[in-house]
């Protein structure tokens, strides 16, 4: 399993922290009021962030 591409649309992100908290591998972190991909190599493609983001701001393209 390779490293997936995680796209965060910064214009849509409101910084609610849901993706950061629900990521089981701590791939994401908050950078001010926008989510940032911190450790893409740790991603297990569980899609929790894409599923839960209320702002349509995260897309995970599996490797």
């Amino acid at each position, binding site marked *: 399993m390779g490293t997936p591409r995680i796209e965060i649309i910064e214009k*849509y992100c409101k910084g*609610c922290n849901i993706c950061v908290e629900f990521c089981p591998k701590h791939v994401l972190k908050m950078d001010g009021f926008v989510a940032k991909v911190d450790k893409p190599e740790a991603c297990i493609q569980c899609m929790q962030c894409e599923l*839960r983001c209320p702002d349509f701001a995260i897309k995970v393209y599996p490797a």
Partner: protein
Amino acid sequence: MTFDYEKYIRPGKLPHIWCPGCGHGIVMKGLIRAIDKCGLQKNRTAIVSGIGCASRLPGYVDFNTVHTAHGRAAAFATGMKMADPDMTVICTGGDGDGVAIGGNHFIHACRRNIDLTYVIMNNHIYGMTGGQFSPCTPTDAFASTTPYGNPDPIFDISKLAIGAGATFVARTTAYHATQIDKLITEGIKHKGMAVIEVLDCCPTSYGRRNKFRSVVEMMKQHKDIAVPVTAAAKMSEEQLAGKILTGVLHKENKPEYCEQYAKLINKVQNPTSK
């Protein structure tokens, strides 16, 4: 798999107006996935809403959409369904819009068992107008109009819908994101009135006044109190105290209103035939 939500969203409408952490976005995603699963045509699907935060949803999605008067989503949807019974009509709205201001329309749509799917996003508050308490605000909870705690007992939307005669009633929460689209799909496929209550979180108007530190804490609380209806059958009453049941709470087959109405028209126009 990466889901292409843009296919169903009107271009240029995002970002939406909902507050950071508002669960309505999660429900909207669930609704889009459910519509995609059912393979509905954009031109043959109507989404109707009243007024409120949750009722802003039809503005973003690319279907036939109507944004109606406060609480009147079920009334407009009934008319649309009667005019074109083959159209899939979905209502969306909040707890205040659906069961307080539009309570009468809601119970009568349930009573008629007309083939609608009503997605109620229950965030326990009137969020848009400044956090006034709604009939779904829990007892002792704080709202802008109940600064000393809410003395009223809570309105159980699912029980109300079952009592009024809806033939498919289900409940889930914004935490259970995959269950949202599963239940809405089942509701759309059900012939008759389907009510899907989604317990939602309003961090701005409800969470801040009730000592929730973040929206994640609100979602985790929903996770803790939700009990699947199948698991609840094996639990005692003490174990179920303070819990809410999730899943399909009620399902039955009863004559659908549009079909009954068509039969009546047929009977009156052709009095000799059976």
